[in-house]
């Protein structure tokens, strides 16, 4: 085993012994063990403030320590760290009593990802010609966009736990959220059930036209198309009209 390999294992092993080749009396090696966990816990708290607020700081710190050991950062951009925290929470028994917690983590991670994601300039959508021109093209999510389908009122829970507001969750219903960046703002857009169904079909369809034709009830096509146009205009969806502009 190389020196830095044993050093790195010792740093990541809580209560582990320090490597033989390091001269440090007085328990000084523990500084590195503590720094590793504390600095990454702080990074996770920055990305997941609502999760931290929902469980409290001591629980969050204990959960983060387990997560950091199981799933350490693989790249040095700390804004990217925590992609799999939601899955970890879903399987973390001590958090079982908060079944919505994993989806809140998904929403918070999607918001940070949206902030740092690539740009994509969308052409303006004005006039019937522009809409007709969209029909043969594939529609995909903007690079900043994430769709989160939750069995819980994930948007309401998130909104209720912002520092500046205290909005009680009044209607405990499943919610689907589309998170994306618009200019300098990250938006949470609620997606209703019909749009959600259509969106799921649209994002895997060959083209907007084929998704509309595949609708089981043609009468709903108008409403679905309207929602898709709104999301295109908001920049949450993009078309593959302009070759070479996709990331």
């Amino acid at each position, binding site marked *: 085993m*190389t*020196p*830095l*390999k044993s*050093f*790195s294992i010792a*740093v*990541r092993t809580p209560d582990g012994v*320090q490597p*033989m*080749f*390091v*001269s*440090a*009396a*007085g*328990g*000084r*090696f523990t*500084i*590195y063990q503590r*720094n*590793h966990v504390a*600095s*990454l816990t702080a*990074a996770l708290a920055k990305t997941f403030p609502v999760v931290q607020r929902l469980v409290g700081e001591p629980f969050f710190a204990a959960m983060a320590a387990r997560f950091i050991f199981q799933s*350490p*950062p*693989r*790249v*040095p*951009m*700390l*804004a990217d760290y925590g992609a799999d925290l939601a899955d970890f929470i879903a399987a973390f028994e001590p958090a079982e009593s908060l079944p919505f917690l994993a989806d809140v983590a998904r929403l918070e991670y999607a918001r940070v990802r*949206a*902030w*740092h*994601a*690539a*740009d*994509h300039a969308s052409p303006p959508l004005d006039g019937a010609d522009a809409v007709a021109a969209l029909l043969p093209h594939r529609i995909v999510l903007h*690079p*900043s966009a994430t769709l989160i389908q939750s069995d819980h009122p994930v948007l309401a829970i998130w909104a209720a736990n912002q520092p500046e507001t205290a909005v009680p969750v009044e209607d405990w219903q499943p919610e689907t959220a589309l998170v994306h*960046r618009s200019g*300098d703002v990250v938006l949470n857009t609620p997606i209703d059930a019909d749009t959600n169904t259509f969106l799921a079909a649209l994002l895997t369809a060959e083209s907007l036209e084929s998704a509309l034709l595949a609708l089981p009830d043609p009468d709903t096509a108008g409403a679905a198309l309207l929602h898709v146009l709104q999301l295109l205009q908001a920049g949450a969806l993009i078309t593959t009209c302009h070759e070479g502009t996709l*990331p």
Partner: protein
Amino acid sequence: MTAAASSPLRLPPAAELGLPPSAGLGLHREHLDEVLGRAGRLGFIEIHAENFMSEGGPTLALLDQLASQYPISLHGVALSLGGEEPLDPAHLQRLRRIIDRTRPASFSEHLAWASHDGIYFNDLLPIAYDATTLSRVADHVDEAQSALGMRLLLENPSTYVSHAASDWDEIDFLAEIARRTGCGLLLDINNAVVSSVNHGWDPQAYLQRFPLALVGEIHLAGHSETRDDAGQRLLIDSHGEAIAEPVWLHYADVIARAGPLPTLIERDNDIPAFAVVAAEVAQAAAILARHARKAA
């Protein structure tokens, strides 16, 4: 060898390089309004490269705005120059993108390691000062300078433990890497004090021996003081306190000997109001001005 590293090395001549010999500030989101509004007399701004590696969006727009207003000191924390493994070519590319975008006046990194086995530790970990490690770090510095197309400043570390294998003095080790690679040095006076106290060196002697002619930037930061389990005095490089009085005294002494050098006020934790860090910038600027007049 990576594709980026195999491109011909075109280092700009020394005269075109470098930060102004004035006092600058490490950027924090909390001070963005004042920094962009030029509220303080800031000679330059230092940014942590890893905070600006976004694919797009407002972070890159901020980067452009900062680069249009200030000389930029680009400071990396994750290149792991002291690591046992090859440098990460993806990370070199990400750094190169920021360098091409902002044309920084300086790029600096640490005499430390931060990654191993694909895990990023988010800490600057100590290396052994021996011949094997020296060759490896020198190779990594060579590779980084080629890939990034600019000279690098290598920062002296703060450490709490030492490797039993170390048979080189820290300053000789830094100077030898600079000699082999042509890199410059970043003298962190707080790190010098922290490591000196922690390892029983004399900080005054350390700074007397430091090769000031190679120094392209100085860092000043705060530390906290505690005792280790054996009751020995222990300094922690916390960057969360005001700059300690002994660090100021050593700084004034270094500037008296070397003349004005680009000086950064670093505060990374428990970020105070802008006025608090601006006062430290002003204090450094006053010391620089005193010795600029003397030099003139």
